[in-house]
């Protein structure tokens, strides 16, 4: 049976951490699974937890009164659900819901923030990894804003 440390070692989000750092991070984690449709986190809740997806797919959405649940993005194996635990006011901004069965490592954000404050090297390495994730999501969002598949262009616009 795999330990949480093994699962952290296997996960793409923690590949830049050394063994000692992974052990520290694993100390704040536990195994959690979700059934189809189950909510991992809900907008407005305290952001004290985040998830590293091991298997399955999660949709991030926001509820709009006039449109109901509006999906923003899907995340899957190797990705992180929840970034709001890193910064004040530590509030969840979007709903996260399982599509099918989802297996995760769930992390106590408060616990990890404490370890990062106590060990700046861990804090820097982890922050660098999460900055990469945030940059990638920002770039993806900007690209989607362009609606490149909607607009005709080039020779097609005869």
């Amino acid at each position, binding site marked *: 049976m795999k330990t949480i440390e093994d699962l952290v070692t296997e996960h793409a989000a923690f590949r830049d951490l050394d063994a000692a750092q992974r052990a520290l991070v694993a100390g704040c984690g536990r195994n959690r699974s979700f059934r189809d449709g189950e909510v991992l986190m809900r907008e407005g809740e305290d952001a004290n937890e985040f998830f590293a997806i091991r298997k399955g*797919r999660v*949709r991030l*959405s926001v509820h709009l009164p006039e449109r*109901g*649940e509006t*999906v*923003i*993005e*899907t995340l*899957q*194996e*190797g990705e992180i659900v929840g970034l709001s635990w890193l910064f004040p006011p530590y509030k969840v901004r979007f709903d996260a819901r399982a*599509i*099918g069965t989802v297996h995760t490592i769930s992390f106590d954000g408060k616990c990890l923030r404490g370890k990062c404050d106590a060990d700046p090297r861990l804090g820097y390495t982890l922050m660098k990894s999460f900055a990469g994730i945030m940059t990638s999501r920002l*770039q*993806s969002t900007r*690209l*989607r804003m*362009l*609606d*490149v*598949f*909607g*607009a*005709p*262009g*080039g*020779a*097609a*616009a*005869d």
Partner: protein
Amino acid sequence: MAAALHAAAEHTLPQFMRVRARRQELADTWTLEIDPGGPFEFLPGQFNMLYAFGIGEVPISISGDPARPERLVHTVRAVGRTTQALAALGRGARLGVRGPYGAGWPLDAAPGADVVVLAGGIGLAPLRPALYRLLAERARFGRVSLLYGSRSPQQLLYASELRRWRSRFDIEVEVTVDTAGPEWRGNLGVVTKLLRRSSFDPANSMVLVCGPEVMMRHVATDLAGIGVPPARVFISMERNMKCAVGFCGHCQYGSAFVCRDGPVVPLERLERLLGVREL
């Protein structure tokens, strides 16, 4: 001189052909099956100039199966006067066809390598002949992956074929859309994200890319980031092609004429130019 002019005229004279069948793919996109009147040989990735009489002529990629030269297939997105006229051609209607033109996908360039086919939107049409050939000659390649991004689930081109390919065990098919409702159980996000999830070997793969130019620029950056050599990446360029034989210069892109030197070109040849805004 006269001989050269004669040869040029031969290359630029359309043949008259008739539409054999027409199928609506999407709200603004139709596939025309054209009777070429005999075998119409082409390379995956090549294009024809299609002429709607009295309206105009446009370059459209061939989207059919190269192993079935008796069926000439084009998928047309109706976005302007000529493409609207072409898309409206019913069974038996006549059109002008000249081609095939240009360089195709170099499927023989990397025997045994993994092949990634990355398409965005209507960009799947020029790649479909390559997919047919890859699947027909499956044993010659390593892993084969199709990564396809579209605007929404309703805008997925060749949806039934995508389902069929997904059910095969010898090709990985990953689809993502930009927007969808909560009933969509697939990926939602940019197509470039699929690259990081796919299981190909970056150091021993060939990547074929077709889609909007901004998508291809981002794909190029991401492929470099995961270690795919630019020499193994091929993109299909879209430019304002008129003569299609490298005479008129309308499709000039740096030192290349897209109609003659492309539309499929190695990324390493055009990578620098992709960032030049004036081109």
